[in-house]
């Protein structure tokens, strides 16, 4: 039984059809990497999964609860889906540790002592235990993103969504974030990542999903995808990425 099932979802913004019938499922513990040209609905797909951008049609299940059902308590279900944003989206008026503790205090209803104990534990997981007292603006991009990951992890989610987590970072800061993500994957976290980090995709993903024009054109394990892509578009996209990042794929 997959953890997440996505069935034929569509989503339009105005006249533009961003998702045009996307279906796939995610087994518990799987790491899926979504790649594809920009504007093909990768981020929108992630936002559909946690219902930040509810699909126009189609169905999404998490653990047999239908998220697209209007009667579903979304606030309850979103606690189980951690989200990491491209531009971190840390609460700017709160210190790093307060960012991590906020959901525990206000959603899970933990008391201060427990909430901050859990928050400290999660700061440790992302190697930010010495920076809890700093405000987001006092941290580097890589550090902010690690706090973003800790904030999502603190809610003890079943699934983590990463929306281009490293694309707003300076090149030398990408490594520290990918390291944290790699460790998460190793610990068995179920993850869906939109990213152009092919090195990460190759070493961590169980499956690469190539999207274009609101469709999934091809999906396969990394070794198949990188060595022998079936679709012509996938091939040329991967070729371009390889040129751009100078990686031998």
């Amino acid at each position, binding site marked *: 039984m997959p953890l997440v099932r996505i069935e034929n979802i569509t989503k339009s913004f105005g006249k533009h059809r961003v998702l045009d019938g996307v279906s796939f499922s995610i087994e518990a513990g799987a790491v899926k990497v979504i790649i594809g040209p920009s504007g093909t609905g990768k981020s929108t797909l992630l936002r559909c999964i946690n219902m930040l951008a509810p699909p126009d049609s189609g169905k999404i299940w998490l653990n047999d609860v239908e998220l697209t059902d209007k009667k579903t308590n979304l606030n309850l279900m979103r606690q189980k889906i*951690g989200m990491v944003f491209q531009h971190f989206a840390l609460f700017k008026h709160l210190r790093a540790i307060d960012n991590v503790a*906020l959901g525990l205090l206000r*959603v899970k209803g933990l008391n201060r002592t427990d909430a901050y104990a859990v928050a400290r534990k999660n700061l440790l997981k992302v190697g930010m235990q010495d920076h809890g007292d700093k405000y987001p603006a006092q941290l580097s991009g890589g550090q902010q993103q690690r706090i973003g990951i800790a904030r999502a992890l603190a809610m003890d989610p079943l699934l983590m969504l990463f929306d281009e987590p490293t694309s707003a970072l300076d090149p030398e800061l990408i490594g520290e974030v990918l390291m944290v993500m790699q460790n998460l994957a190793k610990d068995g976290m179920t993850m869906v990542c939109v990213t152009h980090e092919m090195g990460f995709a190759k070493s961590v993903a169980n499956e690469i999903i190539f999207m274009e024009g609101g469709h999934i054109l091809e999906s396969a394990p990394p070794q198949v995808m990188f060595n022998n892509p079936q679709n012509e578009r996938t091939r040329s996209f991967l070729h371009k990425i390889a040129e751009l990042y100078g990686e031998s794929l």
Partner: protein
Amino acid sequence: MLDSAIYILTNIPLLSKGIWIAVQITVLSMLLGMVIGIAVAFLRIYGKGPLKKAVSLYEWVFRGIPQLVLLFLVYFGLPEIGLNISPFLSVVIGLGLCSSAYQAQIFRGAILSIGSEQMEAGLSLGMGKVKTLFFVILPQAVRLSLPGFTNEFTIVLKDSPLAYAVGIAEILKYGRDLIVSEFRPFEIYLAAALIYFVLFEIFYYLFKFIASRYKVPGYIIAEG
């Protein structure tokens, strides 16, 4: 010259009997304006359909009416439909409603500058819209709106002498009474001006202190 200066200074204590009432009017009007202003700002951004239209209309109407007209409407107009409101309350309502329209704009600008990702981040934690508004958006909006709010406060303070028009004994009224018996309007109004100026400075620095107290390191907010 020296005589005039001494005369001005000796009259300040007499006029300053009106300070307390001027401060009360200003603070209460601002509070009323703030409560309505924040609500209007949130409804204009997050509200839907007719409610959103209604608050836009509210803002539009109250920005366009001079305070004195609004004050007379409340104080002289409402008794016609059986609502007798004390002069003091009329001033607070009149200035407060007027200010609420301006404060709504200040808060709306602040909320809009926060960016939609903060709301999404709150929602993605399962906080829901209301909790996110309260714990994430509002604390940032208040900080961002402090410069504009400080400015609006000093404007309302300087509008408070309008209370004189409905016979409230504030600074200007005491001045008028003195002029009737002493006939030295220049010196007495100058004394009143001095009091307002000092009040203005006190509040200005008070808000500056508040702003520095709640400053978030690295989070840049323009000085008021």
